[in-house]
């Protein structure tokens, strides 16, 4: 597989087209809301990501954004991985994903933990695209902090 094909895995292209979590949701009564807006000034990608928490459970993740296939697919994959999960459990996944993104192509990505996000392993070979892949995750981290405060 060429490096380009490793970057644009079919899973990524599919998520970029059928985006999970695209469109901001309103929270149910009794949930805490956290939100974060993130920009990548280099390429103009942007995302506004919202979480609703019920105690330590992430009830739902929703977002609106504009950006390349990598950033949009990453937000979609994140939505699947975070929704309905324990906050701490998701933060572990986030840590794993960040480590993968920083690996410069040396890690394969643990599918047990990362599920569809493991397909982003090829992105880590393209330093200019790591920010695209991380955009939604940085937003999620900040939104979780905001919901907690």
């Amino acid at each position: 597989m060429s490096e380009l094909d490793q970057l644009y895995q079919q899973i990524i292209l599919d998520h970029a087209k059928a985006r999970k979590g695209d469109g901001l949701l309103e929270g149910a009564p009794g949930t805490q809301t956290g939100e974060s807006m993130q920009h990548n000034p280099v390429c103009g990608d942007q995302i506004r990501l919202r979480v609703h928490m019920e105690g330590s459970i992430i009830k739902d993740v929703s977002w609106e954004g504009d950006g390349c296939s990598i950033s949009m697919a990453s937000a979609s994959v994140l939505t699947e991985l975070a929704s309905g999960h324990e906050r701490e459990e998701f933060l572990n996944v986030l840590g794993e994903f960040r480590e993968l993104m920083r690996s410069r192509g040396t890690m394969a990505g643990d599918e047990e933990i990362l599920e569809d996000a493991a397909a982003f392993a090829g992105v880590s070979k393209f330093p200019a695209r790591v920010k695209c892949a991380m955009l939604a995750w940085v937003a999620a981290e900040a939104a979780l902090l905001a919901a907690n405060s």
Partner: protein
Amino acid sequence: MTSSATHPNHDDSIQPINDIEASRLRADFPILERTINGSALIYLDSGATSQKPTCVYEAEQQYYETFNAAVHRGAHSLSVEATDIFEQARSTVARFIGAKDNELVWTSNATEALNLITYSFANASAGLGGEAARQFALGPGDEIVVTELEHHANLIPWQELAFRTGATLKYIPVDEHGVLRMELAGEIITERTRILAFTHVSNVLGTITEVPKLVALAATVGALTVLDGCQSVPHLPVDVKALGIDFMAFSGHKMLGPTGIGGLYGRAELLDAMPPFLTGGSMITSVTMEKAEYLPSPMRFEAGTQRIAQAHGLATAVGYLDEVGMNRIEAWEEHLGQRMISGLQSIDGVTLLGPGTGVTRIGTAPFAVQGVHPHDVGQFLDARGIAVRVGHHCAQPLHRALGVNSSTRASTYLYNTTSDIDALLNAVADVRGYFGVSS
């Protein structure tokens, strides 16, 4: 190559550049022999920065090997020789843009040149520079006019100057094709307009601004004109006196020169009346513990040890451009640009941004591929060795006016060939298929 005594481009009988000559010129740019991701490099990002011919960096090396010394100070022979090289470079570059030697101030790039003007005017507005500088003082009620086409470098410094002085910043808008709405310019430029700052060539669209019309409008209200020449000086013959502008900023690295060197042209009587921006050594006549007197332009604006090797490199680049001929470069890039534009327009699902064929522009083409983000387009092209720019190209307001967040931009220079353009067009035609976007 050495600088010729006269502009060879003033001779209309000379042969236009063709693919054979462009291929021959490429040999002067070793980087163009590189392989990128398994393919020969096709460099179509000269709008961001140009590649450099060997003579330019050899000139820098020769300076360090043979002449390196502090300029304008010290009586030793090396310093005298270095000063000669530095001032000869100024002379060469000044002549290239039609200016007098003392009308060219070295800066690190166009951004610094534009900031030099705005900080100097802010200083004048704060009362510095005495009676002579009062003509530059701005305050509430005064207006600065820019255009919606501007690169951030010719926008944000003016925003900051307006914030600092209480002046109002206005702009001439563009239409949905990115064409300046010249019919509104006469209303926007008023008796209160003190400065009219605008780009000569749009860095995104490659379109050429109607400079004479804007200069005439500024003249009727006595406003100073500031031209952003970043995308014109490298690609077109530019004569500041013929254009009738008061100031012009340009960058060396976009015109075959080294990074770290650029210039500010200003009419001598204006530069000599402006308060300095950066202060320190080399720009003074006498200094006491309380105050200092300043040298006239250009040294008043050249505090500290200067970019001597870079100036020599830029003068060498200008010599190279002169030898090829700016009129010929202009014609070649117009040819490449029109081929690129009509080619992009004929690809299904590809939209050219800006006006279509028939509009004079340099070899710059911004485009959108339906259903594929510019960043992905750029990545796909890079896999084939084709280097283009993606993003907002430091012109967010213009992109907003065009209804997009970002775009893909291909831009040429004298070393590009028609086969470069055809490789781009073939690759762009494959983008949607790769990303599975149905046509």
